[in-house]
């Protein structure tokens, strides 16, 4: 999926200062882009606008040439073909792992659904946990389920909100490698938000650095955070 963001500005209700100001960014199909910045820099807001979970921004967002956010247009999150892994995973506690992954496969026959769930479980190496419930898994396993669930409907773009912040340091190192491998296999445009330089170095092709809602730098890892 190709994504184009132009002059995007966003205010939270009641705030006089914008959370995002005049953001311009183009992302090509298959690219892995990191939105990097301190807390409060507006990086999660940008991700939520891309997802369609916020819709009061001015400026435009186009996805594969379709205007999903603009002065007179808004495409609902469920119609954008975008997958998202939430910071705390948001796995439905009342559904087992298999059902969580199948949740986004709406228009498939049951056989196809089963096959796709199996494929996703294999991708994240969790086949044996299919019948377990989220609270029975470790943090790393929950993160992989969230990833499998987001990838199952084959989204054009994957959004990850602080994907490693809930994991122990040792686990973070291991999961970063696994995630890179999975993303390369899935060949999906990926945008992830982080405040950790190690995440950026391990995963990103390009980095957009945000500071107080303004994009202050954009380029490769070497051109931006390593400088």
């Amino acid at each position, binding site marked *: 999926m190709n994504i184009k963001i132009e002059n995007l500005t966003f205010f939270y209700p009641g705030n006089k200062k914008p959370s995002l100001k005049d953001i311009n960014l183009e992302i090509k199909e298959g690219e892995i882009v990191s939105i990097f910045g301190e807390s409060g820099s507006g990086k999660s807001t940008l991700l939520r606008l891309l997802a369609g979970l916020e819709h009061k921004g001015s400026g435009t967002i186009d996805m594969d040439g*379709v205007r999903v956010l603009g002065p007179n247009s808004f495409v609902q999150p*469920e119609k954008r073909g975008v997958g998202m892994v939430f910071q705390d995973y948001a796995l439905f*506690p009342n559904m087992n792992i298999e059902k969580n992954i199948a949740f986004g496969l709406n228009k498939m026959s049951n056989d196809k659904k089963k096959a796709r769930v199996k494929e996703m479980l294999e991708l994240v190496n969790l086949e044996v946990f299919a019948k377990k419930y989220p609270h029975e898994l470790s943090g790393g396993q929950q993160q992989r389920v969230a990833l499998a669930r987001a990838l199952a409907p084959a989204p054009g773009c994957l959004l990850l909100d602080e994907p490693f912040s809930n994991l122990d340091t040792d686990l973070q190192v291991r999961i970063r490698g696994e995630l890179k491998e999975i993303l390369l296999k899935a060949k999906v445009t990926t945008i992830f938000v982080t405040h950790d330089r190690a995440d950026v170095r391990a995963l990103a092709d390009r980095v957009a650095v945000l500071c107080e809602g303004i994009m202050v730098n954009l380029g490769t890892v070497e051109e931006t955070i390593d400088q």
Partner: protein
Amino acid sequence: MLKRKPGFYGIASTIIAILLIFPFGDLILQLFQKPNENWMEIKEFLLRDYIGNTLILVFFTALFSLLIGTTLAWLISAYDFPLRKFFRWALILPLAIPSYILAYTYASMSSYTGVVQVTLRSWLGTGLDQRYFNIMSMPGAIFILSISLMPYIYMILRAFMEGQSASLIESGRMLGKSHLGIFFKVVVPVSRAALVAGTSLVVLEVLSDYGVASYFGIQTFSTAIFRSWFSLGDIDSAIRLAAILMVFVLALLFLEKILRGRRSYSMSNTKHRPLSRKELKGPMAFLATSYAGIILLLGFLIPVGQLIYWAVLTYKDTLGNEAWILGLNTLGIAVISAIIILVFGIIIANYARLKNNLLSKIYSKISLLGYSIPGAVVAITMILFFIHLDRWLAPLYRIILPGAPALVLSMSLVLLVSAYVLRFLAVGFQSIDGGFERIGRKYHDASKMLGHGEASTFFRVDLPMLKPALLSGFSLVCIDIIKELPLALILRPFNFNTLATKVFDYANDERIPEASVHSLLIVLIVAIGILILNKTLDKEKNNEHKN
């Protein structure tokens, strides 16, 4: 591609909010009419008594409920003593007995032919001097209402104290404070918001009470509204009294806001470790068990025991088909009203969760309004509104219901159900709102990101997770409706009775023993509801700890 459009929840919430405040328009308009002679008389000779009596009843009931509720909550949360586990849930049981039933029972028990006087006469050869021990008096009403409403404060405070981190109490101990010192210097200030919330609930219930005050012959605002309306046929004065009562309620809500303060003592930054209870031994353990035991005896065991005794004597005459029909009427109307309340509550609470803007906040406040408005005021408001509605719909009735009486909706159950919805929406809404708050937005957002629309997300994701909140909301609303008296009394259609109105009728005819079977049915249904509620809340708390 979709344009931004107002969603289902926005439109539906707006309609519900309008339906909730529209009826009050009539009440306010009536206030601007010229007052009649009757009102001048009430104002000159009676109003001072109504205000004085209402204030005395409210102040002392709040004081005693607060004393009993707080000490019991602290005892159960901080100490171990014989039967503590049993008392932990049993002390909620006085809520199962509506205060008017408690009043009839105690009044009858302490009368000349009642069990107390008869026993004293036969054992000691002397009775109690009615000049000093007349329960049908202001102190009697304060005793009945305090013992009956105390569980509100006990429940709210117990939940708050059990959720407190032990570190606060332990630092108090390390700094050399005694248990009593910790209670007054640490526990009470920290629990201020919970104390104020519980006390406000008690005060609102006292302002709304009709059954106790009317049976004991105490002139309060609620009884005066009824008297003006029914005995004197003076709806104008009833409306003016209702308006003054509302000024009291608004002043109370304002006071509550000030007392709660802006400080919130949250424990978010410390690892939560529940309070470890201190074991009481010897005389202290005996005192603790006795104190909890006496309150349970007075608030539940003695009155229920007396009701059972009377029921054994009278069941042959009173436990016929009629009792079961009344039971079904009561349950039926409670369940129908509770379902409507839950649907409205879900719509407004979900709108507030998803939008979180000024409009959604206003709608939430409107849905909380009804619980602060005493039953008598709700009754007047709704009857005025429905009479106007019937007049407005008259041409339609002539077409679809030729030969029907002029008042169709005002003479039907629609009026009573609407009044229940207005009065008790707050109870259902608060449970659902709390449920949504616990779930948060993340699962909703995740479902939307996985291609599910609003309806599918609600039924597949939100609803299953909301089940405990819905169950507690449903039980709470049903409990309140089954116990409710003034609305049922005024707004019931001709020949429609509930258990509560039947008990009132019996009591009015001075046939208290005959009211026992119906009273016990109410107590039984409500006690089951309370126990389900208690289990649901405990289960929810355990799940939270597990997660």
